[in-house]
């Protein structure tokens, strides 16, 4: 899919310098401290999200009973951020506990009594998630440990919310090479335990993926996985995409939980190479990646084809 100029302008290119890339805690303070970004893809992605929630709700939404307090906090935070940051598109009216949230893009109003579960037809997280492009996950803190206890996840980068529900931070990251066994996992876990309300963080994570597909769930891998083998020197530029997740972390003070949200962006290499700085930075980083990272990022199979493609542009530069 050819992208519009605004999509490219919005794309959060994740590499800052030519430093070799390795797994690390690359979190930085979030400024401005806003949980949501509304982009030019809003309508398209909200529609896709709602379709998935309709057809495969169980795959995309999971929660445990103890998460209601945290879910209401997420709804509260996100509704305020949307109406404060995008007042022409979202309105929040409150009369005591009677709230009314209007989405002027979709022309919908959610009216409910704050913290009264029976006033909503869906769970609070499932309601608010339908108004944002982000996937929203809640980690509960218990005895100095963080557990993934609720989530609305429509655009996973090859993982399953159903399988990971209930896991600790370290258990979630178990499949990542050189993560838990190097002590990196524990370092990040302690960083998260120290996260404070009012001081949110963000980080960018990246992988390579085939086609403009946000939904790369492992549940449907049998449908899309084979496309990796279809990469050729002719189609590599349009087929292979850089997938970037802007991830944000907020401490929710009442429930002492953490909101982890993920906004996923995709850019084909055909579009990426138009920016000479991005192209040469990516080239330097990509050609210096160890195999274990290439494999984990899904790029091992067509690594050489992509390098050859990038080289062509390097020479013309």
């Amino acid at each position, binding site marked *: 899919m050819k992208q519009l100029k605004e999509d490219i302008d919005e794309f959060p290119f994740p590499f800052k310098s030519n430093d070799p890339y390795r797994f690390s805690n690359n979190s930085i303070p979030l400024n401005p401290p806003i949980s949501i970004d509304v982009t030019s893809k809003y309508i398209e992605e909200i529609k896709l999200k709602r379709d998935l929630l309709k057809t495969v709700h169980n795959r995309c939404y999971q929660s445990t009973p103890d998460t209601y307090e945290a879910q209401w906090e997420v709804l509260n935070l996100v509704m305020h951020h949307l109406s404060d940051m995008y007042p022409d598109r979202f309105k929040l009216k409150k009369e005591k506990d009677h709230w009314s949230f209007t989405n002027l893009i979709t022309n919908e109003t959610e009216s409910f009594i704050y913290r009264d579960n029976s006033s909503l037809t869906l769970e609070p997280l499932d309601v608010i998630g339908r108004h944002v492009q982000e996937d929203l996950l809640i980690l509960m803190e218990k005895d100095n440990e963080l557990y993934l206890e609720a989530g609305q996840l429509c655009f996973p980068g090859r993982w*399953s919310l*159903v*399988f*990971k529900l209930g896991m600790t931070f370290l258990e979630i990251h*178990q499949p990542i090479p050189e993560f838990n066994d190097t002590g990196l996992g524990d370092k990040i876990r302690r960083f998260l335990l120290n996260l404070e309300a009012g001081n949110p963080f963000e980080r960018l994570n990246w992988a390579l993926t085939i086609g403009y597909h946000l939904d790369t769930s492992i*549940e449907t*891998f*049998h449908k899309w*996985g*084979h496309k990796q083998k279809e990469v050729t020197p002719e189609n590599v530029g349009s087929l292979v995409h850089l997938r970037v997740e802007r991830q944000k972390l907020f401490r929710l003070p009442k429930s002492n939980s953490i909101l982890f949200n993920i906004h996923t962006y995709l850019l084909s290499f055909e579009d990426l190479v138009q920016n000479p700085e991005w192209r040469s930075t990516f080239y330097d980083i990509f050609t210096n990646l160890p195999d274990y990272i290439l494999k984990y990022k899904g790029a091992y199979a067509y690594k050489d084809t992509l390098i050859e493609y990038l080289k062509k542009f390097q020479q013309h530069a």
Partner: protein
Amino acid sequence: MLDMDHATNKNFTFVTGRRKYLLFTDITGYGEITPILSSLDEQNLLYMVYYFNEFSSNHDLKTYLSQQKMGTYIYASGNWNSIISFVKTAEKAGFTEEELQIKGIGERILRVFCSRCYAINVCKTSKEMVCQSCGQSLSVSNHYSRRYDAYLGYTILN
């Protein structure tokens, strides 16, 4: 959970220089620890031998293991069910892969979670299998969920 494949040695190797050794076994696994017992005796090292069933619960076992000081090394051999439950408890008590060796006897029964249809399969092999519910070929990983007491089976493309 500790990576079972990693922690499994074909045969035990003797590790010297630890403060104390704990050996856990049952009737089926006893033969595996005898070479280690001889080495420990030869070198006059401090050790204790326990049968798994001497601990009335995993809680008692965990309490006992938690009280051990740094430098304690564990060998455990026995049927796979005992070994799996033992390793989980040892991990909760703070032991890591570097501090223990295990040897399971007989067939190891695994629960495998199908990433395509969520069925939990019970199987004996540990590398690849076919989901009994949806027919998908799965590669059995060591990504473990306590919630399902199962390992994740990733789709293998054919």
